């Protein structure tokens, strides 16, 4: 097991190196120029040359890359061109918000996805199953920005029962930022009302972000449960006269969950980096809005380091999934 983990960790190094080259080059291939973005209409060739020189963008590409790479080895991911803030500091400040949103989306996805998957599997072909299939199709295909704006329109404006954006009502609550997880910080500050407000702020963006994983989890659960239901041991359990509930929880779900766990892991990794639209629509101060802004302003340093950090976290989550999978299923370790 230890060897397996070690091998996977060593594999991270070439993956991240390759990623750093790819991201570095991709950004520079994309249209957009930081000096142009900073200066706008004022981008006379003279001004552009001055800003590019100050940002080090006038150096040859390979020199820029090696500067960046040496920085990475020293743990220095650079500073934003636009704000001169340390990229790692900015990332760490914003990441808790993104984790919080991701967890909220996953809670919603799991709370609805697994039960719906189980029900539709057990009632294959019934109207419940058909309905579930439609829901999952809609969930996968509805664009997040549309869903987000609609959710806000209905639940925040027409029937104002939930807040439209942000992480907490700053007018009402002034919460010291300790962990930067709003739900945790409100509790640490002893603000129960603030905690409820923070959770209320999580609901709409959580639903918007959670629909895709919900649909995927539901479909995987359904497929997996259908497989397990056909297994001999389930038939035996039923034949023994075990109550349905016990068969479901002890035999069906437990065995059907393995593929679902993998999907949950992968989806969590994806959500951590994929919340850009949801965060932008809901004015959510996470990593997504940060990268969105950086792309709009061609802030290379933030894009390349921010994306690299997200990629690092994604492969790390993947590694954890693989390890847990190997732990759950010994056959993996030897393949």
């Amino acid at each position: 097991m230890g060897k397996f983990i070690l091998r996977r960790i060593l594999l991270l190094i070439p993956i991240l190196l390759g990623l750093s080259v790819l991201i570095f080059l991709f950004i520079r291939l994309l249209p957009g120029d930081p000096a142009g973005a900073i200066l706008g209409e004022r981008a006379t060739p003279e001004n552009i040359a001055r800003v590019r020189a100050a940002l080090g963008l006038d150096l040859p590409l390979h020199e820029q890359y090696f500067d960046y790479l040496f920085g990475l080895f020293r743990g220095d991911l650079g500073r934003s061109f636009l704000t001169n803030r340390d990229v790692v500091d900015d990332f760490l400040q914003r990441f808790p918000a993104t984790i919080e949103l991701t967890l909220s989306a996953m809670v919603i996805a799991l709370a609805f996805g697994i039960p719906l998957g189980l029900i539709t599997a057990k009632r294959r072909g019934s109207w419940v199953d058909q309905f579930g299939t439609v829901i999952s199709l809609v969930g996968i295909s509805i664009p997040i920005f549309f869903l987000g704006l609609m959710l806000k329109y209905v639940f925040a404006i027409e029937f104002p029962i939930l807040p439209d954006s942000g992480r907490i009502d700053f007018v009402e609550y002034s919460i010291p930022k300790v962990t930067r997880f709003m739900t945790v910080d409100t509790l640490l500050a002893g603000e129960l009302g603030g905690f409820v407000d923070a959770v209320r702020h999580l609901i709409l963006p959580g639903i918007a972000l959670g629909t895709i994983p919900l649909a995927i989890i539901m479909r995987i659960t359904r497929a997996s449960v259908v497989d397990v239901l056909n297994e001999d041991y389930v038939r035996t359990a039923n034949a023994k006269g075990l109550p349905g509930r016990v068969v479901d929880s002890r035999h069906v779900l437990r065995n059907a969950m393995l593929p679902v766990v993998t999907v949950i892991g992968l989806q969590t990794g994806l959500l951590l980096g994929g919340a850009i639209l949801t965060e932008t629509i809901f004015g959510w101060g996470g990593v997504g809005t940060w990268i969105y802004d950086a792309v709009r302003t061609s802030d290379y340093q933030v894009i390349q380091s921010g994306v690299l950090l997200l990629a690092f976290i994604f492969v790390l989550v993947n590694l954890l999934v693989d390890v847990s999978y190997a732990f759950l299923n010994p056959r993996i370790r030897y393949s």
Partner: protein
Amino acid sequence: MRTWRWISAFAVLVLVLAACGTQGGASASASATGGGAESTEASASEEASAAPSEGGSGEPVSGGTLAFAGARLAASLDPSQTSDGESFRILQQIYEPLVDLAPGTVDELVGVLAESWEGGPEDTEYVFTLREGVMFHDGTPFNAEAVKANFDRWQNFPEELQANAYYYGATMNGFGEGNLIESVEATDETTVTITLTEASPTFLFAITLPSFAIVSPAVLESTNADDPTESTLGTDVTAGGTGPFKLESYTPEEEATLARNDDYWGDVAYLDRVIIRPIADPSARLQALQGGSVQGFDLVKPSDYETIQGEEGLVLVERLSFNSLYLGLNPTAAETEGNPLAELAVREAVEYAIDKEALIEPFYGGRGSVADTFLPPSSGWHDSVLAGVEVREFDADRARELLEEAGFGPENPPEVSFWFPTEVTRPYMPDPAGLHQAVTQMLEDVGFVVVPNSDIWDSPGYLEDAQNGKYDMHFLGWTGDYDDPSNWYGVHFGFDAEGAAATQFGCETEGLNDAIVAAEAELDPTARGEAWGEVAGLIHGDVCFITLVHGDTALAFTEDVQGYGANPTGSETFSTVWLTNGGE
């Protein structure tokens, strides 16, 4: 069955949470912060009487918290390192310059940290008498040494800090020795003498920009402000300003909280606090206003004007234009063989063919004005410049006649390549593709054949190619930095070191260079206006540059917000704003 129970339990939980504190979502103005602020002097109501929010009545009241949304927060908290409106919005509440624009104007100066000054456009020496008894938020006194420390700091910026110090570099002719600033002397505690290397009619206007705000020298030192990697002035909450609000907390991704400075030297602000939130998407900003999580926001999409005006409880506050959209024509661009724009008559036909007025309703939500000159009507120079310009009003028949005179007709129509930028909107250009389509239609109506082209705004593509004169015809525009024709016509037609600015438009107008040099050097205001009028007359007469529309912008507020004074330049303060319910 068990699973259904889980689902219903979760749904109930969601509903319970939704129900909790519904009133908080519906009315964000129900502030928990205590009022108790002393009532301010009646004199402050003078600005407040320019209350843009209609329907409000009575005297201003103190107290309450205003939640406001911009597109983003400040790029930096170091005023000298910023040049964009979003940064200025926050910083000009906290920091103050020596002089500023009078509320609602772009051409009237008032003393802020300077009580008075001697010196004008024709002088090289300015003597500022500073306001006495002003304290920085950190408790240190504001004095002549503080002013000198800031001016010296800007002039001696290390290279890394020069990149984002756009306004200092642009208005003071660069950095270091040999720029516009000869010396800054603290003559005594309350007197500062600034000597320039040459007379500059724009110096006083330049230092009204928030980038020239004075920061406490103690804070400059404690934040290592001049060390590009160690400086925390741009990132941390400091008490370095003198303004009507202090920065209370700042999370760049979430909020900037400003608290009233009760020791302010002038009229103390009404609001207890102002919370500014970044919401990048304009539709999301509107939804935040409708949903009650903010009580005001800036940069309303023109297509939303109608929605806001039609919705009870919301008010649209107009900000007069300080910008201009223009069409650049370049007869020397080699895009089209035998470029028809080489003929003056064809270029004139382009201007006659365009119904500028018809662009305002669909693209600017009806808010804007026809641009007969580059300078908008809000500029103090508008009239004198306009006097020098021969205006061509929309006349499609005249356009057809001119084309015919130039030898073009249905068999051999003049063909032009016409460019617009993508992935950008600007106050003067809310919908580049739509505007392009509309103008194309107008040109085709009089007999042009238009080849549509586009490129991405800030890739080196569009901006660079347009400015290097690669396009036959292109859209671009300008938002003024300060009110002087040199910042408009001068920037576009004057020659900089590389001669670049002048290559954007292909006309080689006879006498233009001399006229610009003369106008730049003219220091007497009346003669200066006339001189720039002459420059404008030459430029518009040659028709390589057709100004189209000055686009107004707008903010939106809930009706309980009063006293916001919009300024064309965006030089706006929250200190005159009050809530009708005082935040109760």
